């Protein structure tokens, strides 16, 4: 559990921490979209400079981001390798059956690698500088237009914020139950696949049971405090859109234009 960097919040007071979560959310989405505009080294350079300066601004050490990539490195290398070996075209300087390697395919592979890296960096930046609650608020606010088509925006936002708040609790509970079963002689990650699957049952069942209990207690507590559904509720945590948020949006427009100009 301790190894996962993505999805963890690191408290801080940097410029990026103070941005409106809606702004960060939209910005991340825009970024993921415009990464696909890049198709030559100039555009990738522009994106890299942009991401690195954002990371720098967040005052979180770069090594933390690199660690965030680590759990996915095999997936990335696998995809990149496939891309390199199966890209047709170009003059192959190495060939073996259906596999071939050319300057073009290596270039393609490198670009895909960069694409992965940039997307992981920027989404790690979002989760590291935004609390789960801010995140849930942002999603609720962004989804608001969907109310026109009777999408239950408030309910979804509520579920999201409850789910997010209970992740650390459930993860602690999982560790605790695992330890308790380990103390009763269960070996996790040992023996044949069938045995390993069987070893999960003593964790899974208590975890489900305690989730049911938590849900029951929580719903009773909510009702007794006057929760009657999402209609007509006021909001305690107000999101404020500042000048710097507009500036970030502007920056993204500029970046998009630069990318369109530079792309070949």
């Amino acid at each position, binding site marked *: 559990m301790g190894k996962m960097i993505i999805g963890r919040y690191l408290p801080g007071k940097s410029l990026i921490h103070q941005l409106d979560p809606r702004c960060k959310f939209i910005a991340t989405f825009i970024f993921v979209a415009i990464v696909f505009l890049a198709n030559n080294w100039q555009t990738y350079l522009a994106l890299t400079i942009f991401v690195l300066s954002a990371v720098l601004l967040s005052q979180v050490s770069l090594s933390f981001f690199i660690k965030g990539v680590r759990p996915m490195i095999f997936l990335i290398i696998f995809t990149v390798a496939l891309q390199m070996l199966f890209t047709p075209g170009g003059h192959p300087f190495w060939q073996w059956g259906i596999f071939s390697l050319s300057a073009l395919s290596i270039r393609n592979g490198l670009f895909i690698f960069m694409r992965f890296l940039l997307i992981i960096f920027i989404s790690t930046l979002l989760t590291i500088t935004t609390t789960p609650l801010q995140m849930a608020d942002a999603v609720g606010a962004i989804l608001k237009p969907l109310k026109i088509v009777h999408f239950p925006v408030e309910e979804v936002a509520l579920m999201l914020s409850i789910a997010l708040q209970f992740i650390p609790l459930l993860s602690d509970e999982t560790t605790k139950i695992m*330890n*308790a079963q380990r*103390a*009763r*002689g269960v070996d996790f990650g*040992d023996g044949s696949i069938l045995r390993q699957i069987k070893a999960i049952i003593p964790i899974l069942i208590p975890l489900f049971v305690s989730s049911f209990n938590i849900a029951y207690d929580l719903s009773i507590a909510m009702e007794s405090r006057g929760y009657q559904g999402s209609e007509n509720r006021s909001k305690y945590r107000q999101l404020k859109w500042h000048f710097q948020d507009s500036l970030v949006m502007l920056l993204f427009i500029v970046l998009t234009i630069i990318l369109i100009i530079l792309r070949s």
Partner: protein
Amino acid sequence: MAITFEHVTHIYQPDGPLAYQGLTDVNFTIDEGSFTAIIGQTGSGKSTLVQHMNALLKPTKGIIKIGNRTITPETKNKHLKPLRQKVGMVFQFPEQQLFAETILDDISFGPQNFGMDETTAHKIALQMLELVHLPTSIAEKSPFDLSGGQMRRVAIAGVLASQPEVLILDEPTAGLDPRGHKELMDLFAQLNQEGTTIILISHQMEDVAQYAQQVLVMDQARLVRDDTPQVIFNDAEFLNKHNLLQPESTQFARELERKGFKFSSLPITEEQLVKQLLPQLGGSHG
């Protein structure tokens, strides 16, 4: 089994930005067959400490000796099973670890993991049910049909079923009614008399005073005191410094002292209090 900690330090998530110290240079010895209590504020490292005693956590630095086994930072996770059978651990709110279809299966889960055959395990499970004051007639019921207090007993029975030589109890009576509390504490005392080494984490100073022979006081990941309850509970200044309270009997005796009563050393249990008060009140046993 005796347990010895030598310069044990534990750091959670070392070499990361979220690293924090769980234990700092802890040294102590727990004798075989003794009853040791660990006290300290919430978050002082008590639970971290006891999880080292059956190698759920391994020291970042230092050596732990449990019986004839030695746990070092290099100890591999394999071959720890025999140790875990000998050192039983009852976690906080152990009722959360129940999972099997019947109570009988759940209690015999531990012994079977440690290699016991099903028939013997079931036999022992029934004995354990009796030991924790539950009727054997409920053996075929689902553990989830029970009340909270009964589930707690089943969970404890499940740990006892492995017949550990050392029993670690992390606030075993938290949230129980007074009667359930006393029954369980008496059970642990009885097991201790029969030779089980007991290590108890507790916030109830009355229990510590009444049952423990040795008290380890933890504060901010450090072991700040290792002494008998009599000595520790008489040191009001020390307790105050580490945000701990004296047992009620001791507090009461202190008030009496102010009114002119004399105590050779402050009593820590009701029994001792009565014993010292009787002659001063001019009464006699009877």
